């Protein structure tokens, strides 16, 4: 793929899939190591919180609520069940949209990776998809599909698919064509090729694409919920905003960020670590 820099407004890093793996340091094991590893991140959070609190204290403005205020709001939405319910709604939309994007991107990415003609044919669509700001995708989907479930799912899919597709296509292009010939000679069916040839080969690019895609998904889901839907985290953010409750906006933001972080670190990175470890075993 000739694309190295996205034309769009959103910060996308393309082609990270082939970046060299970090050097194998002796793995930090034991409980002590596990406890000290997140310390730098926690320190940063602590410093930011302290700075914020200082700012809130000195400015004494309703626009910069103190930590206590935010925490109270967070406790309120947690105990009322609003947090759980809206996060669930939003996550469902993101999951469905991402799943749709995944299926389409794997098909399109493999097609683009294997056929020069299809690459030329589909590339403009992918590039336009990358260049179009998430805001525009969200607005158009709201206009066209209104409050139906199609709206958020399609928005998320449109946001996630281009980066995913480009990365998958790149991964497939790097697959040895000799293996494709072998599969042709032995008449391996499409599913077998997908499972044993294409998917394993593109695992690193798949994860790079998935991470970028999910990052895009978070951004647009909030937008689409603000503009066109009657529930979800974005809707709640907008509600607090319209009531001039800055602490409420911040409480939802913090909660949402925590959920995203949990999914990034908890789910994606664990999956990736396992996939990469399996690859390394297989390629030893």
């Amino acid at each position, binding site marked *: 793929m000739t694309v190295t820099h996205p034309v769009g407004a959103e910060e996308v890093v393309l082609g990270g899939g082939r970046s060299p793996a970090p050097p194998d340091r002796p793995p930090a094991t034991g409980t002590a190591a596990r406890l000290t590893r997140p310390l730098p991140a926690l320190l940063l959070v602590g410093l930011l919180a302290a700075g914020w609190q200082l700012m809130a204290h000195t400015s004494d403005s309703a626009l910069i609520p103190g930590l206590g205020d935010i925490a109270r709001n967070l406790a309120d939405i947690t105990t009322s069940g609003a947090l759980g319910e809206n996060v669930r709604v939003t996550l469902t939309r993101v999951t469905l949209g991402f799943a749709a994007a995944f299926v389409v991107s794997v098909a399109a990415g493999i097609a683009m990776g294997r056929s020069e003609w299809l690459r030329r044919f589909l590339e403009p669509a992918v590039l336009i998809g990358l260049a179009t700001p998430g805001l525009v995708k969200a607005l158009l989907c709201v206009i066209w599909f209104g409050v139906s479930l199609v709206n958020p799912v399609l928005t998320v899919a449109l946001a996630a698919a281009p980066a995913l597709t480009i990365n998958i296509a790149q991964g497939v292009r790097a697959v040895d064509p000799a293996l494709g*010939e072998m599969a042709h000679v032995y*008449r391996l069916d499409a599913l077998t090729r997908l499972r044993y040839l294409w998917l394993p080969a593109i695992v690193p690019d798949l994860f790079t694409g998935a991470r970028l895609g999910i990052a895009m998904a978070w951004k647009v889901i909030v937008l689409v919920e603000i503009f066109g839907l009657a529930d979800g985290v974005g809707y709640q953010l907008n509600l607090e905003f319209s009531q001039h409750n800055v602490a409420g906006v911040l409480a939802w933001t913090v909660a949402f960020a925590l959920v995203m972080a949990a999914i990034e670190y908890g789910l994606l990175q664990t999956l990736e670590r396992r996939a990469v470890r399996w690859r390394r075993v*297989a390629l030893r």
Partner: protein
Amino acid sequence: MSTRISLDGVDKTFTNRRTGERQQIFRDFSLTLAPDELVAVVGGSGTGKTTLMHLIAGLERPDRGTVSTGGTRPRLGMVFQQPRLLDWTSVETNVRLAATAAGIDTTEVAPILDAVGLTEYARSYPSVLSGGQRQRVAVARAFVVRPEVLLLDEPFSALDELTARRLRLLLQQLWLRTPRTGLLVTHNALEAAFLADRVVVLGGRPAEVVGEYRIDRPRPRSPEDPELFDVHRRIVAALT
């Protein structure tokens, strides 16, 4: 179900992607493999032996002329010059996937792995194997599908002499049990003489048949058969 393979008036030219230089590998080239005939092709490297094999396998198309396998697409067993294994899955699965795709019962996988001496590596990934062991997986994969046409591109050249000998005997057994049409590319003139019904020597650019030897010795043959050494001498003479 025996397959006749014929190349008729085949032209094939490659264009080097970087230099744009064109080299004609075949011009008006014809060759026929009779049903159930095992033909060995010998010749210097770069002559076009692999290209010939890929033409028969349908992996390359002739620029002109025809390559025919008798109307149907025969079931192929092929050992490429490199093993071409799926690195992400076990030895056993590599062989099994080909078997399944060919409609062969998976119970036939284990005996083949045993025959190539890889039983204890069945569950290993190909990456832990030596080059010779990987090539044996490729041989097992080619044999397990009960090929109607067997295409072997220097299948034993990466193996130690002992293993190569074992696999040559295995190949001979295969022909004793069920003959089929086969093409064996090799650098080893003695191997060609031992295994083949006919040895074709390719040379020149574009490639031509510069020598052809029919070997009418009944199977099973002995690798020590003095008659074979005689053929061997004549092949080497044609090569040089």
